[in-house]
């Protein structure tokens, strides 16, 4: 994916996910009850979308949103258009069903290659992770397949030099923040709480309802070998789904009736230190010096 000196172009990968706050598990069959559960854009992806739009507003150019999913994933794309994205691409095919992260990054990287052929890409954005699969593996998978510089957990983009094709940014790492300089094109997974999502303008909202969404089948996305898609292209398989086993014993309850808060607190400490004499010793030792 070589970048040509044309207008600035970011592609943001977004995933449509069930609003997990409203997910219920069937008490008998242990299956997820999806019926009637509203879908949303994966919340982490909105930080990526906003960052891409912020760069576009500063440097000009285009923001494309891309998703792989069932036909109804078009809703997520229209929502992104309503927020201000310029173009939307949906890849949808029954052969994508059951994709693990390796198969997902394969399909998305093919679609990105096709998009890039028509309109060279400077930055591919993804969210940090999703709220359903929650693996954080798709971003690195895409970067590796397309040979893009992989920049994960990005907290801030400090500078972008389009002529020199360099980018300077801050990346969260253990115990601190790395300030990195890398080259375009690159893949960025954006950290949460790094920006504030804009409200779409009235014009964007109106446009979103009518705007065309480019829809590709596997073949149209440039996938010649369906063996790498969906279940067949997924080395991982889910063998068993089950409910966590509840703990047998409940908490020992501290009697509070007729006690002042101070007496209750003392009772808690008595029980605590009786259950764990080591704890009292460790705590006391800590403050001795």
């Amino acid at each position, binding site marked *: 994916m070589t970048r040509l000196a044309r207008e600035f172009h970011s592609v943001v990968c977004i995933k449509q996910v069930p609003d997990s706050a409203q997910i219920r598990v069937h008490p008998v069959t242990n299956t997820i009850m999806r019926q009637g559960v509203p879908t949303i854009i994966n919340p982490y992806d909105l930080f990526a979308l906003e960052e891409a739009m912020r760069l576009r507003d500063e440097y000009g150019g285009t923001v494309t949103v891309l998703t792989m999913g069932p036909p109804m994933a078009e809703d997520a794309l229209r929502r992104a258009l309503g927020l201000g994205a310029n173009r939307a691409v949906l890849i949808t095919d029954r052969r994508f069903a059951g994709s693990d*992260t390796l198969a997902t990054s394969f399909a998305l990287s093919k679609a990105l290659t096709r998009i890039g052929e028509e309109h060279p890409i400077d930055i591919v954005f993804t969210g940090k992770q999703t709220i359903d699969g929650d693996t954080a593996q798709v971003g690195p998978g895409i970067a590796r397949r397309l040979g893009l*510089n992989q920049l994960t957990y990005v907290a801030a983009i400090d500078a972008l030099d389009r002529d020199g094709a360099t980018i300077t940014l801050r990346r969260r790492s*253990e115990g601190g923040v790395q300030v990195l300089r890398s080259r375009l094109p690159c893949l960025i997974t954006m950290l949460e709480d790094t920006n504030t999502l804009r409200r779409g303008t009235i014009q964007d909202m109106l446009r979103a309802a009518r705007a065309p969404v480019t829809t590709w089948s596997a073949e149209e996305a440039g996938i010649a070998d369906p063996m790498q898609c969906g279940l067949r292209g997924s080395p991982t398989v889910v063998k068993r*789904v*089950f409910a966590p086993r509840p703990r047998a014993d409940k*908490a*020992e309850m501290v009697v509070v009736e007729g006690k002042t808060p*101070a007496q209750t607190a003392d009772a808690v400490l008595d*029980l605590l230190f009786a259950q764990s004499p080591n704890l009292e010793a460790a705590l006391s030792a800590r*403050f001795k010096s």
Partner: protein
Amino acid sequence: MQMQLAAKFKDYRHVWVFVEIERGCVHPVSWELMGEGRKLADDLGVDLCAVVLGPRTDDTKAAISQTYHYGADICYICEDPLLADYRNEPYTRALTGLVDKYQPEILLLGATPLGRDLAGSVATMLQTGLTADSTELRIADDKSLAATRPTFGGTLLCTIHTLNHRPQMATVRPRVMAMPEPDRSRTGRMVWHSLGMAEGDIVTKVLEFVSDARIEKANLAYADIVVAGGMGLRQPGNLALVQRLAEVVGGEWGVSRPLVQKGWAPAERQIGQTGTTIRPRLYIAAGISGAIQHRVGVEGSDLIVAINTDPDARIFDVAHLGVVADALTILPALADAFARRLPGRALAS
């Protein structure tokens, strides 16, 4: 769906743990994984191997000896100045190079920012399966790795296998596995590997590292004592009661997710499925209902004390000690009681 392992994978043997070293410090999750990896290796009757990547320094040398203390039979080492700061390109090159050459059947990494960044690209290079955020690892009857992880925010668990690909890769969150006792008398074999890269081959440059020590950051995962508050606190100002108790006992403070969403506390203070997993000796939960997404992050605590006005709150199913009372009065009373009873602490109140 039993499949024959392709011939090219038949020779893949042994259990590997990637030892995460950032700026000279080994991340404790690496030793937690060694403890778990030792069990898997023993079940399979194979070696446990550590992978250490880094510059040639005393820190790296110390890390190599420690891998044996924590159970390694063999340590694969790639020492190169280019591995001084974590960067995806040289680390991916080193780890995939080692895997291609020595062919492990299992490869484990911590589900930290570094581990997830590296695991995702290494698995893609190797075209193999990667199970994220596992909470339990087991060898199945057919000798393959069964990795169990929470799904849908912890309401269900699922067990994932990697069919017909090797190595079988998994990441595990810090504090999910127990820390093993080191045996300082153990030693083992060293195998050296060269990176074969020049700085010019690496596109990404590290300009600077801004340490969190300068911006004061929570270390919830490894705190000995954690005090947390939930929506039962009612007002952002009442978080001070949680903070004061934490200070009196010398612990860290945390919150349930809604407090982060409301902006009462920063994201790094969130405990649970989408926050930090904790494993302290003592966890005090005040005004927290005990939703499954919260519970999965605290279940490893040695002792859990819950304070809640609702006697039927689910937090009492996971707590060891329960107090049905108003957290706003019990938290200060507890702080005073600890201050009174801990020598040298009276003045802190």
